[in-house]
């Protein structure tokens, strides 16, 4: 069964006609071509699909699109400007915290929410904060350094 819904994403309203069981992740990627949000497992285990819903990080692969109606959704495409990056993104670049980059959009979203709610976290709070975002490339070392760097500013 398809439903016509409207979603508020990165400040813009999108009208989509989607099966009621379709996840927010699949709608973002397939219907709206917002492919910056990645799929690493499709079952809430890896965090690659993290987006913000009303400022809170969620795994968009376990949220139904219909349940996102009426919420403010922010994806990686809504972070930073056309050419300039958000300070979190700049820090990840500067610290060499990006390798394959597949976890990176999810990390950016989680870090954003973390620093919005707690601008000066301790290192263990940072580690705790991103524990749902798996990374297989970096050992998290430079990711944690980058987030700590931003938090000290």
């Amino acid at each position, binding site marked *: 069964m398809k439903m016509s819904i409207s979603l508020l994403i990165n400040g813009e309203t999108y009208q989509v006609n989607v099966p009621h069981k379709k996840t927010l992740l699949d709608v973002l990627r397939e219907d709206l071509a917002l492919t910056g949000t990645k799929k690493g497992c499709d079952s809430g285990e890896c965090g690659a699909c993290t987006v913000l819903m009303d400022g809170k990080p969620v795994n968009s692969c376990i949220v139904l699109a219909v349940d996102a109606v009426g919420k403010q959704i922010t994806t990686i495409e809504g972070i930073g400007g056309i050419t300039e990056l958000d300070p979190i993104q700049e820090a990840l670049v500067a610290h060499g915290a990006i390798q394959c980059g597949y976890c990176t959009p999810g990390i*950016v979203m989680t870090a954003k929410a973390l620093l919005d709610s707690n601008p000066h976290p301790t290192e263990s709070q940072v580690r705790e904060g991103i524990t749902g975002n798996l990374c297989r490339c970096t050992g*998290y070392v430079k990711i944690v350094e980058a987030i700590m760097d931003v938090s000290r500013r």
Partner: protein
Amino acid sequence: MSYSVVGQSVPRVDAREKVSGSALYTGDMMLPHMLIGKVLRSPFAHAKIISIDTSKAKELPGVKVVLTYEDTPKILWNSAGFPPSPGAILVEDQYILTNKARYVGDGIAAVAAVDEATAVQALELIEVEYEVLPALMNIERAMSDGAVLIHEAEKNIYGHTPVVIGDIDAGFADADFVFEDTYYVPKVNQVSLEPCGVSMAAPDKDGRITIWTSTQMPHLVRSITAHALGLKTGQIRIIKPPVGGAFGSRLGVVNEPIAALLAMKVGQPVMLKYTREEAFLATESRHPITMTIKTGVKKDGTFTARQLTSYIDGGAYATHTPSLAGPVAGWFLAMYKSPNIKVDNYSVYTNSTQCGAFRGYGNPQVVFAVESQIDDIAERLGIDPLELRLKNHPCAGEVWLWSGWVIESCGFEECIASGAKAIEWTKKRSKIGNESSHQGSKKRGVGMGYMMHVSGARPMLHETSAAMIKINEDGTANLIYSNSDCGQGAGTSLSQIAAEELGIPFEDVMITKTADTDVAGFDIGSHASRQTYSGGNSVKNAAAKAKQKILEMAAEMMETPVSELVVKGGRVWASNKSSEEPAKSVSIAEISHRAHFGSHGNQIIGVVSEEPPGNPPVYAAQFVEVEVDTETGIVEVLRVVAAHDVGTAINPAIVEGQIEGAIQQGIGYALTEEYCYDQESGKPLNPNLSDYKILTSVDMPQIETILVEAACDTGPFGAKSVGESGLVATAAAIANAVYNAIGIRFKELPMTPERVLAALQNKNK
């Protein structure tokens, strides 16, 4: 030596597009009329297929094509990404879709439909009748008398790799002590965050097909796919967009032939994207190996004989296995010097998913076993474990048995010295269960492991790379290269090498971030930690050729001989004759403009296609401190000090990143990761990220990397390698630290809390 951009941690060339989410990975792409492919997988580990009925699936609206074994070319092939070379033993034993199921997940049929839901529904409509055969889930069963044959190999053994040096029996007779131990290492999965197995194939009307694929080796995937499909190599074009991690999993063909066959049959583009479960079920993991190591040693720690007998569980298809048996022998015999060495490696089929490449390519397995036993030997002889290693490792100027070539440079002593100091070895490496390490039920220990690794696979495999440098009208440069960067940062390091050699700013070099076999020259790809050394040499030499032409043009313009010119900061300078004269210079932009539009129009281009001159080994000593909770059995790694000799670090942040990421995989190998099968049914027990545990940010210890830069003459600016080596010694170091903490020697990985508790209870009996 002082360089301008070599040795700088410049940001990666692809960081901004990745961090902003705008980088397009294969799975992000969409083409007009693109169909979605899906594969029907066997629910049985071993079964004959009696019949398949696809009629209902074909009738489903939206289904465009359904393929089975009947529709595939009857060409046997091997998926491993090897160039034809002495070390490539390629047993061809698979078809694109099989007519006999050999593991749970084996591909039986494939469909392409207008969308994913329809494709999934079509799979459900395919009716298959199976005759189930016994599932042989381990080497013992596979090799037992009367076991059914998975292929046509007696006792399911399809390879024996022997090595004999000297006289092993005389060597043991000569020894004061002989140690013999058997070790087992499990199957582990690479778990690249982008699930392994994503390709999109688009046929054209000229009989060619373009395949976008997440791969480590565009050119070799091109030729293997062509062979499997019965096409000419030139009919296939491989494009490699950004890759979401690989670690060996994409070292060869994954699902490209299936996507291509579907696309060709229907004449439309097909996207074939494996789920996380399929990536576990149907793509290659690290080989489980059972290794028996026998070592003869004199009282003073001199080895008289070293012997390895190993049984390599290759899973259901040969792919890499018989070729991997070679390096497994190589890692073993090249680690420590001994006049007498014997190796026998056997490749065995079982009914698990085929095994292939995973960072280290057999070395982590061998090093776990060898380095565990070395610590036991040191303890028995009463020799410091560091001393024993220093005494017996091969060093610069000696022949390295892996390659048969002389070792160019060796930073191992410095690795040992700096690593030991950082971990406070002498203070902390006290007796087992030392009073000071008591903290109630928690016991601490330190341990270390040593390893050597390659910078390519010569002379066993060809290591061809090609590079082209084009100097643009404005003095910027394009580097055309089959860039198989999968996240490790090779594209950035290679750009630094080009900029350094050309003498232009790093920002002015633009590498082809996407590899395209229609554009770049033949390149082996990303394997054997070869990119910086092998690829780097070709890039440097191409840049040198372009630079020579720049100098020649400058000589003409400045009326100064080439021998008196140098390139620096984007300008060519004439060396100052007298200090009164102001320095004369001309910009590369002016030179290039003159080349393009002067009296004889030509662009300055430097091209090479070549193999690198050597294969310099790298060294590492990793030290760890652990805390073992004797009540819960939990081993916590508190700290890792990783001292690595990488030659010149072209980009230190990238080098550190390689080591740090590898250590996450190494700790997982030691403590948490094991891909398990039900031993009766052959069903995988943990093909997902909840049950297959990789380390999260809170699980990771402090990591301190120490870069030892023992530069080698043949490397680009002295670089050797780093990619794989970061995890090779980690599990051994942890096992040795656990022994130091609780006095228990684990000969099997992973050291899970259950196993540690059981061993503690056994010990206390």
